[in-house]
């Protein structure tokens, strides 16, 4: 009976399959507990190859943070820049710096970290031929224009401003005065690189070698990376766990589900849809702390109607028409904080954050808002269109809420509408090529915790991220003055003076500061997010 055999075979197959699934339900987060315990954490596929000067998003950045240490390191709690490999960074004129490094640092393959390791890495990062997306970080160093011209071919591959003095000393000449420059050196683009990076680049990319507290044990591109503690790590911040297993998730909802099911120890991005349940699910194992991110509404100053003295009133009026409190509460479940300046709370008072610097224009005031907008001649074109990308980040909800708020104030349902753009790339291309004629959502994640980073790249005339092409001589002058100050406190307060011009002119409307959110399992403790909203992996302890 052939039919019968077939049927039996099928039945067996199903039975075996179901049994196998049941077996697959066990827990395999290996490594045991205590100091050698392994922490599993969610991850996203890095957008670019994992080169320090080529990584400009948070997923690649968090790996670099585990694999590398630079001259300077930002305190995970305060964000303050402290010398790490640097013994001292000295300058008498804010333009010529002498950097001396400590003698005891090595890469995990045994190679010594020398002044040359830094100079080579920086030259590599700056050279146009290497296509490094963070090349502009080296723009302050003398000779950048030759190695990385705006257009055309580079005439050299090295920066003339970098000179190796001896094994532990090198000098840097900047093209302009920049007193806070040493504080920028904690950014991942400035880390040293071992010789194998250049000699066998492909091998290095498939298994990066650095000088940080972890080494790469295995790396399956696009799906997982297993990092293990480097026992001979020379730094003071040795890893408190045996290693980190990063696992790429196709969807952060799945990562969250895995966390609640006990298959994952750490999720560093709680999905918006779960914010309502997160307190009930995790209790005090949910972290929601400020990060160095601000979100804003930007305007096109290349459009005549927005670039008039009257339009200032309109922008201030629009800012006053947005009920920030309500939106951050109801739409973001308090994972955003209403903004009242153009920086971020993570800078701290000393670093330049000043609550309420914006003043009245950032306070919700229905009557005054309407009056200002009407005084300014109404919204240019009669309607405010806010563009956003619809593919990621669920921007639709808050853009609609902002429009609602403005429409309420204006008593007109057509005063403001959201205008979605299909993909992020298309959105960015419209923004950066000055195609938009209305407002658009903008955001800024700091590269280093300095007030300079929140102002200069965004609002200085023709700065790389000044997409709206706003320009103000007084503002530019104050930024130049602040950069030339040798005293940090004076520099910060000069930057704040420049920021006050933003309050008067309102080139972009500050909306809210974004928090970092994370959740962790009861298997681990001592979990915290640093000021960049990246988990401080090396301090996590396994129970």
């Amino acid at each position, binding site marked *: *009976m052939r039919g019968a055999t077939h049927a039996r075979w099928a039945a067996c197959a199903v039975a075996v399959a179901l049994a196998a699934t049941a077996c697959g*339900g066990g827990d395999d987060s290996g490594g045991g507990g205590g100091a050698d315990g392994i922490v599993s954490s969610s991850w996203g596929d890095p957008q670019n190859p994992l080169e320090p000067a080529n990584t400009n998003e948070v997923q690649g950045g968090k790996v670099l943070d585990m694999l590398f240490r630079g001259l300077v390191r930002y305190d995970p709690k305060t964000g303050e820049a402290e010398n790490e490999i640097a013994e001292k960074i000295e300058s008498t004129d804010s333009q010529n710096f002498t950097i001396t490094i400590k003698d005891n640092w090595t890469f995990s393959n045994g190679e010594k970290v020398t002044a040359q390791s830094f100079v080579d890495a920086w030259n590599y990062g700056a050279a146009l031929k290497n296509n490094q997306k963070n090349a502009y970080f080296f723009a302050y160093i003398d000779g950048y224009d030759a190695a990385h011209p705006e257009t055309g071919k580079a005439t050299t591959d090295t920066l003339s401003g970098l000179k190796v003095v001896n094994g532990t000393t090198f000098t840097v000449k900047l093209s302009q005065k920049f007193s806070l420059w040493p504080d920028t050196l904690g950014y991942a683009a400035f880390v040293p690189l071992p010789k194998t990076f250049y000699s066998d680049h492909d091998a290095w990319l498939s298994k990066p070698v650095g000088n940080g507290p972890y080494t790469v044990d295995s790396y399956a591109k*696009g799906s997982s990376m297993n990092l293990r503690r480097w026992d001979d790590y020379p730094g003071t911040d040795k890893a408190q766990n045996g290693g980190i297993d990063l696992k790429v*998730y196709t969807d952060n909802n799945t990562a969250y589900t895995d966390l609640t*099911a006990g298959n994952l120890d750490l999720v560093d991005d709680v999905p918006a849809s779960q914010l309502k349940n997160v307190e009930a699910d995790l209790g005090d194992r949910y972290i929601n702390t400020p990060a160095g991110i601000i979100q804003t509404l930007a305007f096109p100053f290349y459009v005549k109607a927005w670039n008039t003295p009257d339009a200032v009133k309109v922008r201030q009026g629009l800012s006053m028409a947005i009920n920030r409190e309500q939106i951050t509460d109801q739409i973001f479940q308090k994972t955003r904080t209403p903004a009242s300046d153009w920086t971020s709370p993570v800078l701290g008072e000393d670093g330049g954050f000043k609550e309420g610097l914006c003043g009245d224009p950032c306070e919700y005031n229905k009557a005054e808002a309407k009056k200002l907008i009407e005084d300014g001649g109404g919204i240019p074109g009669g309607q405010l269109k806010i563009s956003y990308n619809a593919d990621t980040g669920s921007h639709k909800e808050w853009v609609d809420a902002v429009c609602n708020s403005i429409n309420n104030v204006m008593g007109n349902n057509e005063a403001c509408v959201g205008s979605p753009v299909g993909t992020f*790339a298309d959105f960015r291309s419209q923004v950066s090529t000055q195609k938009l004629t209305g407002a658009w959502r903008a955001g800024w994640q700091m590269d280093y915790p300095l007030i300079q980073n929140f102002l200069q790249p965004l609002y200085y005339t023709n700065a790389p991220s000044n997409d709206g092409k706003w320009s103000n001589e007084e503002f530019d002058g104050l930024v130049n003055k602040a950069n030339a100050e040798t005293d940090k406190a004076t520099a910060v307060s000069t930057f704040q003076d420049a920021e006050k011009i933003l309050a008067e002119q309102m080139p972009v409307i500050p909306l809210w500061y974004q928090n970092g959110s994370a959740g962790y399992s009861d298997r681990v403790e001592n979990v915290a997010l640093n000021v960049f909203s990246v988990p401080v992996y090396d301090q996590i302890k396994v129970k």
Partner: protein
Amino acid sequence: MGRYVIRRLLQMIPVFFGTTLLIFLMVNVMGDPIAGLCGDRQCDPATAAQLRTEFGLDKPVWQQYLTYMGHIFTGDFGTAFNGQEVTELMASAFPITIRLTIVAIVFEIVIGISLGVVTGLHRGRPVDTGVLILTLVVIAVPTFVTGLLLQLLLGVEWGIIKPSVSPEAPLDELIVPGLVLASVSLAYVTRLTRTSIAENARSDYVRTAVAKGLPRRRVVVRHLLRNSLIPVVTFIGTDVGALMGGAIVTERIFNIHGVGYQLYQGILRQNTQTVVGFVTVLVLVFLAANLIVDLLYAVLDPRIRYA
């Protein structure tokens, strides 16, 4: 038969070029992918220009297409923006999705056809009505609801499975995702089989077979089912391609790093090389599956001849 196969293979060539060209144009219409590469800040012009040259984006679209097709015939599918070869991505994604598809197809065949035979032979009885209502529910509920529900119940509440599939995606972890992926098609297979069986149950050859005194099982399997399978096989054949390409939802829910995930990622990052490469292979799979289905007809019904 041989000539038929050759003719079909030749017909595939224009279809292949047409579809790839269409996809190429569609991805290109979405705008400049380099603009999204640097995040919320603009790439500096020199680097952007160089990246454009590297990925060939500075040339006119027709030229990009010709170069791309030229490369494909040498087995070079280009490089994704994260520096990985597209062929490398395919080598990791396709085995996983193929495994997932096989699980789904097995479910469709085993459960779908069995239920179809049972209900087809017992038309109007409670078991028939029950299965009909059940399939209606399955067809009506979107896949992501079924997926999330099963994930929550089996994965989180009862702890029978892991809510997410590990990167290696072994066969046993793919059972539940496979079932979810198969669910809608499974319901269709059940209904198709049922109708076909019910129709043929009253045909002359079945009556003859019964009159000859053949055992009931032999009548059902060898005579009735075999003849009723033609529409079902057609459906399952076309479904192979649909399942592979349409696994985006299921793969996302269960964290499976297969074709759906790579396609989604490619579209999100506007990575022409990834999207066109993967879709090209999917088109080939689809064409091959269709050819195999057509050839299977002759096996099921020897009266069908190819010329």
